[in-house]
């Protein structure tokens, strides 16, 4: 698969809320990968990266939360807003697995709104073919 790294967003260091967001294209699918803490301080970084990714008119968008250690409702809100704002036919899928991410996403029903996958490969496979 031809992988093209597009940009790297900045890092926020306010009080333990460290978050890094990367955005890249894997074929026609945009991948926004974030790590660290996604809370009310850092959620706007994720939102900006998703907005930038969608602006490139990808075939789909994967939000990879594999490296996220803490995900608060502010971050979940960004995911739902992205899902609701995405153009018709552009699916957004989430990669999340573990106590900090997939567990709370399932508890509040986000997993019913958009698909959750345990690995990036699994998520990318949903766009193949």
């Amino acid at each position, binding site marked *: 698969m031809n992988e093209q790294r597009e940009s790297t967003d900045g890092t926020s260091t*306010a*009080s*333990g*809320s460290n978050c890094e967001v990367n955005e890249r294209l894997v074929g026609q699918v945009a991948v926004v990968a974030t790590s660290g*803490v996604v*809370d*009310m*301080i850092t959620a706007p970084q994720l939102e900006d990266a998703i907005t930038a990714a969608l602006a490139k008119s990808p075939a789909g968008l994967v939000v990879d939360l594999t490296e996220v250690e*803490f*995900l*608060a*409702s*502010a971050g*979940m*809100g*960004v995911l*739902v*807003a992205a899902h*609701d704002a995405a153009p018709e036919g552009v699916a957004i899928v989430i990669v999340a697995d*573990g*106590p*900090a991410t997939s*567990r*709370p996403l399932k*508890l*509040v029903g986000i997993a019913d709104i958009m698909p959750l996958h345990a690995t990036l490969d699994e998520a990318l496979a949903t766009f193949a073919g």
Partner: protein
Amino acid sequence: MIDSLSKTVSSAERFERVGVPADSTAAARARDEFSRWLQGTFDLDPNKSNDLVLAIYEALANTAEFAYLSSGFRGTMDLYAAHDPAESALSVTVADRGRWRTAPSYPDDRSRGRGIALMKALSDRASIQTSTSGTTVRLVWTGIRRR
């Protein structure tokens, strides 16, 4: 202002942060300190550990975002956690002297408003008391044992 007095207590039985500024930075700091106290004091599996930290953060974040919106001043919030070894129960209280929004301002915006649902889903018992003098969130977890 009396609210500016702050107090910090951490022991095996209790964790207290009184007079924490109701803002996002102080909420994150209180969350991280609470998390370290939890890890050092109790024998918790990763699910329970994240449940506790996320639930108390949602309470702090709600206060930081909403409690003092209409008050015109920057208020504070208090975080108390107490462990009852006999009951293996951990009770956590987050209190402020402001007002949470009673009705959602964005009823059609489903990207917001999951904080209270999370607190309820993540704890064994949750209650939110609102009065003219403030809002108090009480969260209780059972099956919490010391290391």
